[in-house]
């Protein structure tokens, strides 16, 4: 019976945490994306939604794939330990995915800022009084 309880507890905790992280990402990532896409709200919302869908698929896929255990659970202690192991792994994967999404958001934003910047990345070799004189 311990195995079944562990599975149910694992699924409940993991899915709940995944939903919480995905919602956090969805709500707080929007501002980054709107900025990155120069105020184009519809495009930002679309990318935000697609990222969250990918996030759900990867995480729920991971949770389902790692559900099974071959360990025999005879005591409550072993059940809690297994649950802790599995939930810990899910939290770790969620953390990695979350930072990966933050990396994507910041890259989108940095690229947008690069586009707006009018300062050349490197100092000129020399100055010419006019473009004609430079030739």
């Amino acid at each position, binding site marked *: 019976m311990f195995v079944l309880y562990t599975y149910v507890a694992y699924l409940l905790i993991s899915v709940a945490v995944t939903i919480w992280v995905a919602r956090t990402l969805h709500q707080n990532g929007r501002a980054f994306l709107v900025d990155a896409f120069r105020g184009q709200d519809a495009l930002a919302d679309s990318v935000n939604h697609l990222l969250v869908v990918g996030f759900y698929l990867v995480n729920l896929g991971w949770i389902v794939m790692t559900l099974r255990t071959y360990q025999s659970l005879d005591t409550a202690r072993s059940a809690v330990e297994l649950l802790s192991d599995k939930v810990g792994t899910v939290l770790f994967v969620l953390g990695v995915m979350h930072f990966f999404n933050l990396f994507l958001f910041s890259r989108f934003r940095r690229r947008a800022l690069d*586009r707006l910047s009018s300062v050349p990345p*490197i*100092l*000129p*070799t020399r*100055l010419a009084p006019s*473009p004609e004189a*430079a*030739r």
Partner: protein
Amino acid sequence: MTQLTVHYDARCGLCCAARDWIGRQRQLVPIVCVPKPDGRNDLVVTADTGEVWEGDSAWLMVLWALDEYRHWANRLASPALLPTARRMFATLSHYRGEISCRLGLVPQIE
């Protein structure tokens, strides 16, 4: 700065291919490519505001003017990567004749 003029070596196949490639890119600062009148080796980029970039700096400015590559230009111009980028561009520029031959790129007048 509203325009960059790239003075390239029209006798070099690689340079002509690069010119055509620049023409196909989305440009954040409009680029005009003109063949160099003299036999100078370095690529030269001039801005309509009077700045002149030569050699490896000119390569970076060309990348900076392109929408897809501005991010790369800023990254390559960072203190950590600039020496490597300069060497890379200098090598490419030095061997452009040989590279053109090996790739079968022949100079083409626009």
